[in-house]
């Protein structure tokens, strides 16, 4: 009896934490004013928000008698795929020039070619003549 009471309180606390993080993430998604800044707010929903809700579901399944850890699969899948989709969305923002772009690189003839700068060539010749 005592254990079930503690588990029920833990479920309630996890639910409140998840609800607060989901709400905060969506408020940030709505209020921020730059596409890259908006990208950062819903990560709270994807990690702590949904993680706390799934943890509450797991504890609740143990509290009502037939325990299961299945929700760990959803949690792991979301945690693994969140950075990949965030990277794709950042690439979309850069591709469409919707955000502040990094400064253009200085022009030279050697970057990303088979050619080597003259200073590096001299150093290589000094190292093994």
């Amino acid at each position, binding site marked *: *009896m005592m254990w*079930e*009471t503690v588990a*029920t*309180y833990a*479920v*309630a*606390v996890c*639910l*409140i934490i*998840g*609800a*607060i993080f*989901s*709400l905060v*993430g*969506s*408020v940030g*998604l*709505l209020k921020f004013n730059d*596409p890259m800044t*908006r*990208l950062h707010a*819903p990560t709270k*929903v*994807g990690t702590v*928000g*949904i993680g706390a*809700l*799934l943890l*509450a*579901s797991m504890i*609740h*399944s143990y509290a*009502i008698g*037939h325990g*299961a850890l*299945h*929700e760990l*699969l*959803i949690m792991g*899948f*979301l945690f693994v*795929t969140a950075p*990949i*989709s965030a990277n*794709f*969305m*950042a*690439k*979309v*923002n850069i*591709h*469409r020039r*919707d955000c502040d772009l990094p400064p253009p690189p200085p022009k030279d003839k050697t970057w990303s070619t088979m050619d080597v700068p003259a200073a590096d060539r001299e150093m290589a010749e000094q190292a093994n003549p």
Partner: protein
Amino acid sequence: MMVAADMLQIALWIAFGAVATAQIMAMIRLVIGPHTGDRILALDTMVVNAIGLIVLLGIAQGTIIYFEVALIIAMLGFVSTVAYARFVLRGDIIE
């Protein structure tokens, strides 16, 4: 014991209200979002919030039969986000 059950009910209602409000806010960003990246991001957030609502429904009804639904929605949400982003980036999804 009764007090703990009552507290769980109150927490469930608060969580339902908060996640539903978050879903509506993401929908507003989906409608007004000025850039394409914002719309993709809003759809991704809506998928995650939908998983949260389904998990809350499973807790409220005391069953675990909603687990498969949540898992399939998580997978479909990731694939659809990547498909949208690739379509914008490359003009094609599978090259």
